[in-house]
């Protein structure tokens, strides 16, 4: 009985999660007339691919997706490469500098990014990074880094120092114990951080809007918004078709990487 109710709850949760995606698919396949029905249908009566041909015909969605993918991959990898050693240092070495650093990371999270956008834009302009994808990567890394650091620091803390001490007792150097003992245990944390950084960059709109002005370098969110007009009026069909295509790369990325998101590696590692 209890099991059945658990399954029911799980099924309800899956429906809740899948609903937007299914609705997106349904809308993408509908004609304008069917979209305007007072009693909406789940399954399109006369499915059409016209929304897809419109979306792909009018905008360079494939090019934009490739650029978005490049920016998101570069930003997430760089974010993790920088934040991993920093997080280790923050978690393991307690001191004044460390406390100040952690405080600064927290403060940076409450700072409204809208206040930073213009000075940042000017810095990028002086570095001749406006209108370039590397410029956008730099910005995405800068803005994901504090939270990634915070996240990873928590994972490092969760690895008991006793494990490293045990490795040291066995003759491992500090570097070796980090590489052989700590790093494998941090894998789920690294994957979670990678995912967070990837999704943040993949969806990011405001910085891209301001930094990228040349149509040849625009990313996916900037391309999707072209199907919308003023006051929330939008060309729903092509927008749904384009949005559906935009979710696919991140879904694939998730599917590939989520298997690494397992926990419980440390079960029984340290006996009290």
């Amino acid at each position, binding site marked *: 009985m209890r099991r059945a109710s658990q399954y029911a709850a799980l099924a309800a949760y899956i429906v809740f999660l899948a609903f937007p995606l299914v609705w997106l698919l349904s809308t993408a396949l509908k004609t304008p*007339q069917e979209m305007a029905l*007072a009693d909406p249908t789940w399954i399109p009566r006369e499915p059409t691919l016209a929304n897809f041909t419109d979306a792909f015909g009018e905008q360079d969605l494939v090019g934009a997706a490739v650029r978005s993918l490049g920016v998101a991959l570069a930003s997430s990898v760089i974010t993790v490469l920088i934040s991993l050693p920093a997080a280790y240092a923050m978690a393991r070495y307690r001191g004044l500098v460390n406390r100040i650093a952690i405080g600064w990371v927290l403060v940076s999270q409450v700072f*409204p990014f809208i206040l930073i956008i*213009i000075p940042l*834009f000017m810095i990028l*302009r002086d570095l001749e990074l406006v209108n370039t994808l590397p410029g956008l990567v730099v910005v995405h890394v800068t803005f994901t880094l504090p939270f990634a650091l915070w996240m990873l620091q928590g994972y490092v803390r969760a690895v008991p120092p006793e494990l490293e001490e045990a490795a040291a007792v066995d003759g491992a150097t500090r570097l070796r114990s980090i590489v052989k003992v700590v790093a494998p245990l941090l894998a789920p944390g690294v994957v979670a951080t990678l995912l967070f950084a990837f999704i943040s960059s993949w969806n990011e709109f405001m910085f891209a*809007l301001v930094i990228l002005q040349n149509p040849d370098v625009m990313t996916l969110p900037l391309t999707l918004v072209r199907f919308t007009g003023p006051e929330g*009026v939008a060309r729903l069909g092509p927008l749904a078709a384009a949005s559906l295509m935009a979710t696919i790369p991140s879904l694939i990325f998730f599917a590939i990487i989520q298997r690494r998101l397992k926990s419980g590696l440390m079960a029984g590692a340290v006996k009290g």
Partner: protein
Amino acid sequence: MRIKSALAAAAVVALAAACGSGGGGGSSSSAPSEPVKINFLSLAWQKESVAANKQLVDEWNKANPNIQVTYVQGSWDNVNDQLVTQFTGGTAPDVIHNDSPALSGFATDGYLLDLKDKLPAELKSDIPQAAWDTVTFDGGKGEQGIYGVPFLQESQVIIANKKLLEASKVRVPTADNPWTWDEFSEAAKKMTKDGAFGVAWPMKSPVNKTLNLALTYGGTFFQTAEGKTTVKVGPEEREVLQRIHDQLYKDKSADPAALGQGTADPLPAFYKGKFAMLPAGVFLRQQVAEQAPDGFEWVTLPGPKGTTAQQGAVSQTLSIAQDSKHADEAMKFIAFFLNGPNQAKLAKGDWLLPTSQSAAADPAMTTQDNGWDVATASAKNLVVAPFLKVNGFDEWKNKVATPVLQEFYANKITIDEVAKRLVDEGNKVLERYQR
């Protein structure tokens, strides 16, 4: 809006920072043989409109190898945030598509070029003065300048279900002889039967619609005396508010379900015959033409008139950035882009009204198909919306007028309370902008 205000504040901070950095960027004039490059930020988004824009840019580029225009597509929802940053950073596009309410602030801050002395005579004379009034602002130095070329305008019409309209046997209004508000109310009452309502008022964003229609009774909502602008809600302003309210709660001829909806949201119910008339901007005809089920017949009727048929107008505009290094070339491009035949193409693509008089005479603008004749004829009633030049209007609209009007139309407060709040709270907002 909050984002915009924050950006504006940030712009001031950043500008101060920029002064310290020495400004940078001396103008490097290009070699004579090199083509001049112009960036054109366009906000066109409808399929036909984007196609028309791209086609005109292509035509220009082919005919003018020395002045090459790059078409950059932006978005209405974010354009002002984008522009604040780019103006401050000195990287704004040369030619900027926007709407007239947004120009006032940018002109005052010195980001837009005054086009007064650059406009070709032909373009100037083809567009009526009422449209030029929508883009004439104080450029921050106490002098009136022209900060954009107005090219598309929107008027309010009534989109009606033809079958229900004919069944009610009311007089069908024409552009020359529109309904009075009394006739409109009567017609709505007659069409309210068999479970269907006469009219629907989607009032999720009630301010612009109410203020534009209020002009039919001379309601301006703002008055300026001795250089100070204040809010006024007198008998003229109350008239239209009360009439809409009466349709909802006295006559019960307006569909209450539509009240909280956005402009296009009631359309499915409209196609289903749940109500007969939908007062809306002319652009909504595009969605009706595209979405209406087979066999559904609809007509475009002119908006009702009170003591006048006047409506407030805002314009879509093309402006030139103050920092543009190729202002003369940009002006040449604008003059081509907005000539009569081209404006007709753009207006057709966006289902809006051209400001160009020669474009308005284009057969595509006067055909009876999809109500173009009625829509185009309504342009003669457009006058500059009085709120357009009120400093602080945006904040008044978002913080005061929107919630107050929403509460009024939802029958939660009386018209006296509306008047009191619009004036008292509104004047406090305006005062801050006039210090």
